[in-house]
């Protein structure tokens, strides 16, 4: 059934929304975080999963979204307008940066994408007059009851999740998706076959950015305060690709599956093994690379049962 995965996504989104009925704000917050990270993972999927470009820029787009959204609100824009502005600015930024950065490949692209995060963070910090610099920025608060605020942001994050899920579906089945997969396999061949690799890559990069920007803007409004270290957190740039890889990069449901599992694992680890948090995330990553190189969704159960080692995806060729 062509739309099976879309149906699953929508059902999952509804399930997340229904957490609000549990009358437990903490559970609602967790559901919101799941939706948020799923959105980020799907965003990364465009450039990292489909096109195969190892981008570590998630934090840059998220952070920029935070700041543009926050600044918009500080200067009097309504919340939806501020968020919209964030999307536009992050989109434009990613298009500009992408044009330059996507000329690099492999290692160099990865390094460049990490550098972008640091650069953005430093730039934001160096204009304290505008952004508050290292002292951070207070965002005008949504002054509703905690239950209402919790519900609002759950709805917002789930909506963004559905949107990015839909776009993923559309892209996967479109010429763009096909082109990106070709680029992933062999970019030079794709170029020769007539695919405009530069344009496709930039589109993928922009797609990977705008949802991050939207999430960032929403996050800023939710927390009421942002500072450069929170907004441009390089740990996020690693966690998000890991979530997508965990579920299965380039698949339709992979990022969603990966982010749920990762976040729940984190919660469990964090509640019970306070001191070993980082190590547990690290362990997940190591296990992921060795046992699940293609992600959970591509696990070949029959292979596991007969103890055949997984053929790694890069050994395909």
């Amino acid at each position, binding site marked *: 059934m062509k739309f099976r995965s879309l149906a699953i996504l929508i059902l999952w989104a509804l399930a997340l929304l229904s957490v609000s009925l549990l009358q*437990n*704000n*903490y559970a609602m*917050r*967790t559901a919101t*975080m799941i939706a948020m990270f799923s959105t980020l993972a799907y965003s990364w999927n465009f450039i990292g999963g489909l096109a195969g470009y190892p981008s570590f820029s998630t934090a840059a787009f998220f952070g920029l979204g935070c700041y543009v959204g926050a600044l918009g609100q500080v200067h009097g824009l309504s919340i939806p307008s501020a968020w919209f502005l964030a999307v536009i600015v992050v989109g434009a930024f990613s298009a500009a940066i992408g044009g330059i950065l996507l000329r690099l490949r492999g290692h160099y692209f990865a390094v460049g994408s990490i550098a972008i995060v640091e650069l953005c963070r*430093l730039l934001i*910090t160096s204009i*304290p007059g505008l952004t508050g*610099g*290292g*002292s*951070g920025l*207070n965002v005008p*608060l949504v002054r*509703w*009851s*905690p239950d209402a*605020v919790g519900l609002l942001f759950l709805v917002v994050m789930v909506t963004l999740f559905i949107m990015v899920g839909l776009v993923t579906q559309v892209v996967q089945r479109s010429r763009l998706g096909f082109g990106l997969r070709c680029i992933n396999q062999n970019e030079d061949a794709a170029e020769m076959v007539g695919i405009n690799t530069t344009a496709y890559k930039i589109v993928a990069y922009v797609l990977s950015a705008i949802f991050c920007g939207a999430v960032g803007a929403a996050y800023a409004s939710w*927390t*009421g*305060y*942002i*500072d450069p*270290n*929170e907004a441009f*957190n390089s740990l996020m740039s690693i966690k998000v690709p890991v979530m997508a890889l965990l579920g299965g990069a380039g698949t339709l449901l992979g990022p969603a599956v990966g982010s749920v599992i990762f976040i729940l694992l984190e919660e469990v680890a*964090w509640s*019970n*093994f*306070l*001191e070993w*948090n*980082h190590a547990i995330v690290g362990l997940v990553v190591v296990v992921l690379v060795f046992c699940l190189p293609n992600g959970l969704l591509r696990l070949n159960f029959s292979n596991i049962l007969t103890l055949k080692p997984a053929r790694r995806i890069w050994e395909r060729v």
Partner: protein
Amino acid sequence: MKRYVSLISIALLATVSSAMAQEKIKIGSALALTGGLADEGIKQAVAQRMWVRRVNEAGGIQVGDKKLPVELVEYDYQSDGNRAAQITEKLINVDKVSFLLAPYGSGHTKITATVAERYQVPIISCVASSESVFNTGNKYLFGTLASLNSLTDAMAHLFQSKMPNTKRLAILARDDVFPKSVADEAAKSAKALGIDVVYFELYATGTMDQTSALSAMKASKPDWILGTGYNQDLILLRKQMSDIGLTAPIVSMVIGPAVRDFIDGVGPSLAENVTAVTWWHQSQKFTGIGPWRTSADFYNDFKKENKAEPDFVNAACAAAPIAYQAAIEQTKSLDRNKVRDALSHLDIQTFYGRIKFGQNGMNEARDMPILQVQDNEVKVLYPPAVANAELRRVDH
């Protein structure tokens, strides 16, 4: 591991107690026990836990006609702002705490206070002192540290009166809420007394090498050098100052020498004659309510229990819950709004000094002790009532 065990035992105790239908006063605390602020977070934790133990040893807090024990529910938010918000929601919704204690770090205090305000839960911060944390109109946020405005005025006055040739001030500040605020206030205080600010730069969090900035500072020939930041920054700063031969008659670090780690970190030679200003010092002769009657009581108890001297962080964080104690006893209830109102009108004396929250929730201005390391000991230069030394020049 210890924490795990203690959390388990607290949980067991809680279930057993609830099975026996005994009430407790639950206070929640998000702590930075790992991550960049862990050093300071642990100090906070140590002080709070000590308070809980002492209070429970005395039977608890008087709520009307009952005496109820206190339970401290802690979580480590890993110096991560998002987690801080998450934990605050968890404490309120899942652990059902009545009151909160804010974490270390002005930014994280803001985040947790935002959540607390939404739920109308009183929250006291023992370590935030910047106006910007308290100026959002949050009626549920209180702070036991006084505003840092008064911090720098006292310093500037004292230095100018003891060394009238102090005319040029150079400031190097960490770009972070508290250190930057101190720097800004210092510049203001200095200018008000006719001292020129000949150098004023910020450095990013995590800067390892300050030599260029310090070289530039050297070129400005200051009489008074002020460095602000957290412990590791200041230790580096002092060391690198000496590396390039930068010195001045007065060298101040905020908070620097007020904390033993700084002195141990730079070594006795470099720590000599560095000045600092702080919110509390054990030599101050305060008396008041709470588990410790006087500053000396707290100092001795802390030293015995932890084999180390307490600093102002320990003191402020042990004092913050005393405010809750007083408020609860006054209102004879655990109702959050009543306690909040009581807090806003509170006026008590403690071993830490007076606790009287002003309009914006900050503790009233107080005499800030000015300290100087002399012969590897911390001496007090001000206020006169407790001063035991005179200001000395820095000679290297």
